[in-house]
């Protein structure tokens, strides 16, 4: 794992059981049985969420969580989406779903673009303090964000961004560029230097090299960065809980509000539907592009 750029492209060979995979002995059967049991355990919470979001409440109370619904209903989904009580208002999760999108789209776009530019500058140019700057950004990935909450709250107040979606975009860009810079820097560090040199000889400008040589070859790392940032920012809770108010809650904060502050009857089916609504965008991204998601994880886990 020392080499962050190489570790993600592991060769697809396994060293397990010798011989062709077609020889099914007791060992192989036990192996598959074990894997299937584990897979069941890993899928169970999402199965439970989906199945119980489609049941009437009394069926959950009297029946069991594993059973399929007897009287199918999408009522909990409609309630979670548009009428459930979030805080004091019966707005459902819809406005907060929109908030999360309004937060995540600009934050991802800006942080990815800035990361690409930073990666270009950090790999193709020398200047005093470049190593220190990169090391400083690298460490900032690991800091517990509790350490910046108080001064950031004050800054957002001064900028007039406290309690707004714009404020959240700002915060996510500030703490997202370290990741996106890391991704692009490592990617461009492995980029063939001859291509860039020959473009320069042909008189390409600073932006010419960036837009005509680097960016057209950046699709894989761009996808990795967008997926990674989208997942992280969509799933954020700490910044949302610290810097937003009723009008600007992201979805995670609204969901927690729905589940944990409901008084009176606990509407499990509505909670499950709400949780699934919050999970859906990142799950879809994961299912569509799991390969890139894993690459982001690996590149994000170890970096040099």
């Amino acid at each position, binding site marked *: 794992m020392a080499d962050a750029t190489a570790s993600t492209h592991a060769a697809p060979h396994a060293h*397990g059981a010798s011989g062709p995979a077609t020889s099914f002995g007791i060992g192989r059967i036990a192996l598959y049985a074990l894997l299937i049991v584990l897979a069941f355990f*890993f899928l169970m919470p999402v199965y439970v969420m989906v199945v119980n979001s489609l049941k009437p409440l009394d069926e959950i109370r009297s029946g*069991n969580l594993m059973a399929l619904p007897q009287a199918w209903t999408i009522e909990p989904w409609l309630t979670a989406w548009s009428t459930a009580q979030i805080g004091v208002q019966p707005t459902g999760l819809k406005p907060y779903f929109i908030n999360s999108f309004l937060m995540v789209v600009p934050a991802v776009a800006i942080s990815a673009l800035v990361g690409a530019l930073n990666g270009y500058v950090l790999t193709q140019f020398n200047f005093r303090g470049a190593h220190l700057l990169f090391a400083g950004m690298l460490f900032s990935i690991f800091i517990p964000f509790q350490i910046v909450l108080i001064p950031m709250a004050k800054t957002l107040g001064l900028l007039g961004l406290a309690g707004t979606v714009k404020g959240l975009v700002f915060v996510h860009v500030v703490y997202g560029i370290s990741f996106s810079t890391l991704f692009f820097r490592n990617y461009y560090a492995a980029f063939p230097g001859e291509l860039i040199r020959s473009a320069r000889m042909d008189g390409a400008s600073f932006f010419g090299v960036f837009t005509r040589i680097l960016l057209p070859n950046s699709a894989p790392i761009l996808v990795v960065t967008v997926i990674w940032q989208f997942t992280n920012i969509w799933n954020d809770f700490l910044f949302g809980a610290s810097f937003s108010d009723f009008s600007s809650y992201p979805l995670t904060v609204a969901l927690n509000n729905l589940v944990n502050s409901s008084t009176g009857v606990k509407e499990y089916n509505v909670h499950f539907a709400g949780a699934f609504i919050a999970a859906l965008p990142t799950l879809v991204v994961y299912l569509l592009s799991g390969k890139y998601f894993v690459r982001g994880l690996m590149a994000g886990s170890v970096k040099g």
Partner: protein
Amino acid sequence: MKAGFLPKLLISPSAFLTLVCVYGYIMFTVYLSFTTSTMMPSYELAGTASYVRLLGLENWQASLSNLGTFSVLYIVIAGVLGLAFAILIDQKIRAESLFRSIFLYPMALSLIVTGTAWKWLLDPGVGLEHTLRTLGWESFSFGWIKNSEMAIYCVVIAAVWQTTGFVMAMFLAGLRGVDSEQINAARVDGAKTWQIYLRIIIPQLGPVFVSAFVILAHMAIKSYDLVVALTNGGPGRSTWLPSVFMYQYTFTRNEMAVGAASSVLMLLAIGLIVLPYLLSEMRKVKNG
């Protein structure tokens, strides 16, 4: 090539934001931790008073001891399971990518979603206990989440479920990087598969163990969302972690200096784990 004006100009906003919003803010919070700040920041210095108060608070001691229990179990269990899953996946199985995807997908979910799902699964009134009793196992009892002695283990269960696939992916990348010649030689000599793993493959995974430890340890210290959604720190303060403590004291109990001090200690703990690792990684890259 030497940077001219334009590249320097373009990287300066990022440099400025990192300098101010990361390191400047850290200095600011460190400063606050030595002041008399309560509800609002105050700039009047009070020496180490807030640290003295912090260390004497039972809420802090409980948070630390919970973090100890949580992080040891979380790191060990997620690490061992992650390695075990990677080895199972590495057996030239069919549908390898399907199994990999199933073990890894929790990592894509918000911890608030994970917390909500497990909150009701572990809830005796509606979850596993209720379900198994309905199915006829009437003496079955599983109420850890309502029990202040056991609730922290519920946080471990949900956190392990969320992250095991990630650790598996790290180990799998490591396994696939092991030189196959040694393995083939051992196989020719008649070594069994488990012997090959134990004597040849696992000893070569040292760097992955280190990476996995650093990642899991820093995630454990930062854990916040999951606790809020799963138990909200309860019952009582039995699942408080330093992150919960920091939020409570800073934003709801109006003891900002104490909250700041607690976040400084969190940063120190993470620095002690992460910095040596990052330095050695950077040295390796420079030399390699």
